[in-house]
């Protein structure tokens, strides 16, 4: 049964989380971290690949911190909190695989900041937190979309596109939770 076909939101969420988490981690790890040959083949352009990966890693680390902020805000109802933590889990998986890939390509992975500047003064309700998360996820979709054409390795571009797909799902679910049209257009930019 598809996520969209079930009328029970809790069951839908379990179904969605169960599927998306497994698919992403398996595919991304295989495409990114598991490719020993990719590291060996990395040519002169790998410096730019490393920069792209590290910029993406920095954004993922910030997203993890942002979801942590939301989780600790006490503004999220239990089902929404569960969802936020599951999305945070995806970002942790993205970050882990990006860091591992940077290391495999001979680079130094970007580190999480000790402190992030978030608009905490504007987060008063669950909807505020969801809107903030949605804006980060929308931005992430745009960032990965803008990064995919820059990779010198098709495998890395494919892996980044896999992460983009996950971020787009997050964005859609958050929009839905806010009562907005989940998928507002046929294309993302």
């Amino acid at each position, binding site marked *: 049964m598809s996520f969209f076909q079930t009328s029970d939101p809790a069951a839908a969420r379990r179904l969605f989380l169960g599927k998306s988490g497994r698919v992403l981690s398996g595919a991304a790890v295989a495409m990114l971290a598991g490719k020993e040959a990719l590291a060996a083949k990395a040519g002169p352009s790998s410096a730019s690949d490393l920069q792209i990966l590290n910029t993406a890693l920095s954004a993922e680390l910030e997203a993890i911190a942002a979801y942590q902020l939301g989780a600790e805000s006490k503004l999220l109802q239990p089902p929404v909190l569960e969802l936020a933590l599951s999305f945070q889990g995806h970002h942790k998986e993205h970050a882990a695989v990006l860091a591992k890939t940077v290391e495999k390509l001979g680079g130094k992975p970007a580190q999480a900041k000790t402190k992030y500047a978030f608009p905490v003064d504007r987060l008063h309700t669950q909807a505020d937190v969801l809107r903030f998360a949605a804006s980060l996820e929308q931005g992430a979709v745009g960032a990965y979309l*803008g990064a995919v054409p820059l990779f010198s390795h098709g495998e890395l571009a494919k892996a980044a596109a896999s992460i983009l797909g996950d971020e787009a799902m997050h964005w859609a679910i958050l929009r839905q939770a806010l009562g907005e049209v989940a998928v507002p257009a046929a294309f993302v930019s």
Partner: protein
Amino acid sequence: MKRCALALAGALWLGVGTVAQAAPDARRGEQIYARCMACHALAYDRVGPRHCGLFGRVAGSVPDFGYSPAMKKSKITWNERTLDRFLSAPLKMVPGSSMTYDGIPSAQERADLIAYLRHVDQTQACRAQAPPKR
């Protein structure tokens, strides 16, 4: 007849080359700015530096922000012209920049985005968040 067809083709070609661009629209630019929000915010530094105070700022000069060496050395001063060039292909203008983004190919979208950035940069709220210019 052949001359007529050539004239028509020429007129069409000229037409393509002179498609009028709409006036920059800050409201459309605000929507485009959503793409920047993976890394940037107006009022505070994130993966990328804040945008308040952008116009007239020397690239790589927001205090305590961890710029790439390439951006620090770029000697760019941000204005409509330099932003338009940078946003069209960031890594072509500043190779080695941390802004690993392919760019915004549409001149109209770049103009709208720059209009939005200019608009918010002039607001009092944004001025209060702008770092001191060097």
